[in-house]
């Protein structure tokens, strides 16, 4: 009887404990779920914030690098006769004859300043956006900022591309300028060589030509003769023939440069116009306030995105053209250097060997040198 009572009491206590436990679970269960959800949201918030800051920093690093490159100007010789293309005057106007464009091509300071100013505004607004991301404490607030970072990517990236392409075009102006200078140097050397040949003709000097081997030896008594490496009788003819080829090559590179610059100026003007169409703010103001424009995606949704993609394709086309021009410049350098070495006593072999651009060029025999 006593055992039955004890058994009954234990059973009741167990049932009571079970009921109490159930009540506790019913009371604290949702709280535990909420806590788990909250922990997941905190983790998500933290992860998203870190990723967003990392992406902003990545963009800032790239954009700042472009601005730094734009701050260094290239040196163009003979500044009095430069051809400049500004943003307001997209057309190229220059005299062109059989030797190519007359005058050196230069990127107008006004165009470069405008491009640089856009890039700086983008950096400023990205820094402002970064500050907002750092300060936000809610997932909703962060998500809103993330949307802005994503929406404005194409626009800010295009600003960076515009800066990078402008710098690439400007660098090519320095290449073309120097090709023309070296070309002029060699032209004057060949003229001097002709003077030497005239001295020989006038009996002021003697030239011995070994016809069987095609070699020529000139003594140093004629004016200017001791500067040259007369290794064949038809050296002047060969040199002039090569100079004609280089003139064509230089003219082609210059034409590519001029057309790239003209297209760049047009694109900068188009981009500026597109920015002016974003809201009621001024074009630069728009870039500075990108972080505050809530509906940028909507604003670009109509013709905007299409226009941006079109601009992107055009910048891509310019970049490809610059690649071609750079390869041609490397070939021209090899040819001009070899010709310099060919006509000068002692040659320029030491200099040619040190030219890094030529390291991947291999055979310069294509120039017949």
């Amino acid at each position, binding site marked *: 009887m006593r055992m039955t009572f004890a058994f009954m009491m234990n059973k009741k206590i167990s049932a009571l404990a079970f009921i109490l436990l159930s009540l506790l679970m019913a009371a604290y269960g949702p709280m535990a779920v909420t806590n788990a959800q909250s922990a997941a949201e905190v983790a998500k918030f933290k992860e998203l914030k870190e990723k967003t800051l990392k992406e902003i920093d990545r963009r800032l690093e790239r954009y700042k690098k472009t601005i730094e490159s734009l701050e260094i100007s290239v040196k163009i010789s003979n500044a009095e006769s430069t051809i400049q293309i500004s943003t307001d005057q997209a057309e190229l106007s220059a005299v062109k004859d059989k030797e190519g464009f007359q005058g050196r091509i230069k990127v107008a300071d006004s165009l470069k300043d405008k491009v640089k100013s856009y890039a700086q505004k983008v950096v400023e607004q990205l820094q402002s956006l970064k500050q907002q991301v750092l300060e936000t404490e809610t997932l909703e607030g962060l998500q809103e900022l993330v949307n802005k970072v994503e929406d404005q990517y194409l626009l800010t*990236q295009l600003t960076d591309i515009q800066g990078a392409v402008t710098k690439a075009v400007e660098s090519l102006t320095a290449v073309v300028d120097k090709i023309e*200078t070296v070309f002029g140097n060699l032209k004057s050397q*060949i003229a001097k060589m002709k003077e030497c040949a005239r001295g020989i003709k006038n009996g002021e000097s003697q030239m011995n030509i070994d016809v069987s081997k095609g070699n020529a030896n000139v003594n140093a008594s004629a004016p200017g003769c001791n500067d040259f490496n007369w290794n064949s009788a038809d050296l002047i003819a060969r040199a002039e023939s090569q100079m004609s080829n280089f003139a064509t090559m230089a003219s082609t590179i210059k034409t590519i440069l001029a057309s790239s610059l003209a297209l760049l100026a047009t694109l900068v003007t188009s981009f500026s116009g597109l920015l002016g169409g974003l809201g009621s703010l001024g074009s630069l103001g728009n870039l500075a306030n990108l972080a505050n424009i809530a509906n940028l995606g909507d604003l670009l949704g109509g013709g905007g995105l299409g226009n941006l993609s079109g601009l992107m394709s055009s910048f891509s086309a310019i970049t490809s053209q610059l690649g071609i021009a*750079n390869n041609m410049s490397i070939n021209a350098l090899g040819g001009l250097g070899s010709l310099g070495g060919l006509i*000068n006593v*002692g040659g320029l072999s030491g*200099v040619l060997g040190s030219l890094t651009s030529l390291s991947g060029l291999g055979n310069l025999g294509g120039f017949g040198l």
Partner: protein
Amino acid sequence: MDRRESKKTLWIIAGVIVGAIAIFGVLLAIILGVIGTDQPSSTESNIDQPVASKEELSNNLVELDQNIQRSVNHQKAAEAALKDDSKRIDLGN
């Protein structure tokens, strides 16, 4: 008689005009002839221009090389900027 005199005067005037034209033509031919004689070619005319020294040529070649290197690097930077999309961090939007 007066008619014959006036005819004579007319012939004299005509002769003077023809003579003047002939003299003018000869002068013109001389002037054009001088201009048309052998002119130094554009290359030859460079003799009067300062001839670049070997050092100058050498330095300009080195500078051209450096300019090309910079130009190639900047062109590659522009290409990289065009391909930046591939380096974007996915923010899950």
